[in-house]
């Protein structure tokens, strides 16, 4: 527990909201009994194996599965020929708006393989070893093609083309020549040229960031069972089982109603499990074999074939007056999409300058394909990358005008009514309060030693709302079941139970929150975008209010009064006034016991699509020490302030902030994909892909600034993403403060820092 909460809305009015009860999934997880995707088994289950490309870029001349088919124990083999053709269109079912022409080619390569690790075929057999042997017997003839990895090289005129007919979208008139640039985006407000003319200091710089993986501990895994009549059941670790249902249905050509997906526990996702790799393959293998099939990725598969976030090449220019007023900001953001279009470059453009009131802004984004795995979402996708460049240049501006970097940010911070680069004005407060909380932290002015430096940065994320569902059952003994469709990644079962207990006025221990399958709760969008506590929380409160209405109706029946004459207070039905009559209040437990007599089971549900989510804003400072002999950067202190709306369960909010910081430290200092000359990944494992471990980090201090969101019944705002935006720039700014040199490429690994120090 970290006792550093700053509460701006200080009225204590809740019994459960803001407390720290034990999470419902805690005991099974710490005792090793929780079931993840790879733990699941069914009688007769087959073991799947995916054959992957050894080449970064090659044309598939032929695939011969005949030898594998003859191997005893092999039950089914799937290639792209088994999947239906998909229309080239960026619109998908439900809210999964992607281009399935691309998605199906990522699930199984068709004309070409586009990265090392690209899936080519899948087999199912009676054992993992037979499946492995069968995969080795599949003969694939390749015509190896030149490849390109780096985003700047992929944009060059003579770059090898991944798609020979790709014409850049967003340019008018449309280019006549194909390229690897899938899309150009442009956003602007004001007049940047006029803004730069008003500035006393104008600073511009280029930056590069490496692609980094979400590094979830649990590799992707699923189990599928297809019946002869078309029904399919899937158990899967994902961030959204409704999304897995929709994606699988589209890829294999099934109906939504024929597929039921049950969420397994999930060992981390951070955005990387909002997309599908295995579920359609397992379903097709099962359909062909007539038996259940489980597919797991190895750690190497995860690195080689699942989506990291983009690496990028960027240029940012900012103008500032001597008094600290930022007059203009401009940026060009080139993002790797991986092998198929769809990097988060739009988000990067929209978030880059969002924390600040800058009247003149211009952002250009390029979505660029290259021969690496298709990028997937990673916490606040796009924002941390663009933010690294912008927050670095803001730091350079502060130094140039001799102003404290946090004071410069406070002077320019966005507030309600500040226009954003996409046009709408900010509608929520919390940014200024967060910056001031960080500025007032006692560590911010603490002295530093030799080779040490302090850096600050801010970060912004939209946060999400959208479709969520919940059901509530009042059990006969007065306990309550809350079921939602939101896979629990960050402790959401606890926060759902807290909100239900608070609304009902009963003890937290009497509420059991679960995550249920697609057949038992209404459609719920993915656990992503920091949307669950907000949107699914509203669904839970809505279902709870319906239950309260029903409980009051049942009490009215018992008392023989009008239902309008009954109110609900602190877990009891009570007469609304003395005019209604003199009745002893009825508890939830008493009413539950009379459910049969008063009309049957008390069960309610809610399906909502809330908007009005408030954005996330985080400000952080880091103290670092740079070893001049080795180039190693040690994090001495990390302080994260964030506007959390209201912390429903403060421990899990702190956990989100600390997790974002820890991942940001890895992004800043060590994490990168290292490709060899053949375009093959040389570090597909945690020994060589260096994530921070506990001994790399100090205790991460959190400051939870509570500026409640008036749209949410308990004031919640999303907290899981804004926290990963500031670390890269803040640590880079700290390294600059310690060494006097500007590191403009991530990661700032020891060899790179040492090289910079030497030069």
């Amino acid at each position, binding site marked *: 527990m970290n006792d550093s909460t700053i509460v701006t809305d200080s009225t204590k009015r809740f019994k459960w909201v803001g407390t720290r009860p034990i999470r419902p999934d805690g005991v099974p997880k710490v005792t090793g009994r929780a079931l993840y995707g790879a733990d699941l088994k069914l009688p007769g289950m087959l073991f799947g194996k995916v054959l992957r490309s050894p080449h970064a870029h090659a044309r598939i001349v032929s695939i011969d599965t005949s030898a594998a088919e003859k191997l005893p124990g092999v039950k089914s083999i799937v290639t792209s020929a088994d999947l239906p053709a998909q229309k080239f269109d960026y*619109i998908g079912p439900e809210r999964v*708006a992607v281009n399935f022409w691309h998605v199906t080619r990522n699930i199984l390569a068709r004309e070409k393989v586009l990265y090392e690790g690209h899936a080519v075929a899948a087999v199912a057999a009676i054992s993992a070893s037979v499946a492995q042997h069968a995969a080795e017997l599949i003969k694939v003839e390749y015509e190896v093609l030149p490849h390109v990895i780096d985003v700047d090289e992929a944009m060059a005129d003579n770059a090898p083309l991944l798609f020979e007919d790709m014409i850049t979208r*967003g340019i*008018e008139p449309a280019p006549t020549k194909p390229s690897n640039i899938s899309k150009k*985006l*442009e*956003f*602007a407000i004001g007049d940047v040229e006029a803004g730069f003319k008003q500035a006393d200091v104008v600073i511009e710089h280029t930056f590069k960031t490496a692609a980094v993986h979400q590094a979830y501990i649990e590799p992707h895994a699923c189990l599928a069972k297809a019946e002869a009549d078309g029904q399919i059941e899937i158990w899967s670790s994902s961030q959204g089982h409704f999304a897995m249902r929709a994606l699988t249905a589209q890829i294999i050509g099934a109906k939504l109603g024929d597929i039921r997906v049950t969420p397994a526990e999930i060992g981390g996702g*951070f*955005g*990387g499990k*909002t997309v599908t790799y295995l579920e359609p393959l397992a379903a097709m293998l099962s359909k062909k074999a007539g038996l259940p099939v489980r597919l797991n990725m190895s750690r190497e598969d995860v690195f080689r074939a699942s989506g990291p976030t983009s690496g990028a090449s960027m240029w940012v220019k900012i103008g500032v007056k001597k008094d600290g007023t930022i007059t203009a900001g401009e940026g060009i953001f080139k993002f790797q999409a991986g092998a198929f279009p769809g990097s988060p470059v*739009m*988000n990067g453009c*929209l978030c880059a300058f969002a924390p600040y009131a800058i009247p003149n802004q211009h952002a250009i984004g390029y979505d660029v394909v290259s021969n690496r795995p298709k990028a997937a*979402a*990673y*916490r*606040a*996708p796009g924002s941390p990358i663009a933010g690294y460049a912008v927050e670095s240049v803001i730091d350079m501006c502060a130094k140039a005008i001799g102003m404290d970097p946090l004071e410069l940010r406070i002077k320019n911070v966005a507030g*309600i*009514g500040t226009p954003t680069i*996409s*046009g*709408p*004005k*900010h*509608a*929520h407060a919390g940014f200024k309060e967060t910056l001031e909380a960080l500025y007032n932290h006692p560590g911010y002015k603490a002295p530093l030693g030799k080779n040490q430096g302090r850096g600050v940065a801010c970060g912004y*994320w*939209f*946060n*999400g*709302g*959208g*479709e969520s569902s919940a059901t509530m059952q009042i059990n006969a003994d007065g306990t309550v079941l809350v079921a939602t469709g939101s896979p629990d990644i960050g402790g959401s079962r606890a926060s759902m139970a807290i909100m239900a207990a608070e609304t009902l006025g009963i003890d937290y221990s009497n509420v059991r929150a679960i995550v249920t399958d697609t057949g038992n709760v209404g459609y719920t969008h993915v656990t*992503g*975008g*920091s*949307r669950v506590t907000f949107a699914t929380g509203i669904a839970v409160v809505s279902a709870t209010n319906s239950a309260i209405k029903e409980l009051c109706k049942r009490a009215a029946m018992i008392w023989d009064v009008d239902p309008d004459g009954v109110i609900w207070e602190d877990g009891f039905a009570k007469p609304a006034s003395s005019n209604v009559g003199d009745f002893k209040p009825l508890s939830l437990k008493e009413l539950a016991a009379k459910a049969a007599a008063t009309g049957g089971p008390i069960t309610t549900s809610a399906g909502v*699509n809330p*908007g*009005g*989510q408030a954005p996330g804003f985080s400000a952080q400072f880091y103290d670092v020490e740079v070893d001049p002999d080795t180039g190693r950067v040690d994090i001495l202190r990390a302080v994260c302030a964030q506007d959390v709306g209201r912390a429903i369960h403060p421990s899990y909010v702190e956990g989100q902030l600390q997790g974002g910081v820890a991942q940001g430290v890895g992004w800043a200092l060590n994490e990168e994909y290292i490709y060899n000359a053949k375009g093959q990944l040389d570090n597909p494992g945690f020994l060589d892909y260096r994530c921070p471990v506990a001994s790399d980090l100090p205790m991460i201090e959190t400051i939870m600034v509570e500026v409640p969101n008036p*749209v949410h019944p308990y004031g919640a705002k999303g907290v899981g*993403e804004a926290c990963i935006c500031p670390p890269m720039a803040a640590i880079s700014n700290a390294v600059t403060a310690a060494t006097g040199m500007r590191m403009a490429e991530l990661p700032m690994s020891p060899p790179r820092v040492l090289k910079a120090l030497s030069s």
Partner: protein
Amino acid sequence: MSARVVFTQGFARRYTDGVREFEVEAKNLRGVLKAMDALYPGLMHHLEEETNVAINGELHETGYFQPVPPGAEVFFIPRIEGG
């Protein structure tokens, strides 16, 4: 009551001949979508499929039921997905 409807430059270039701002009479977003579809047949589909909306700065999915207060700014922006 009238609302001010605004599109991004890119969206306007694609679908509304570059015109970015409109005044429409509507009580809710459904009314806004209908009014815009009357001006540019088929636009409602593009708005529903491709955009989110900020009503006086508050972000929403582009649905029908969101109320549009008198004098509101209704800004359609590209759809955003998180991690």
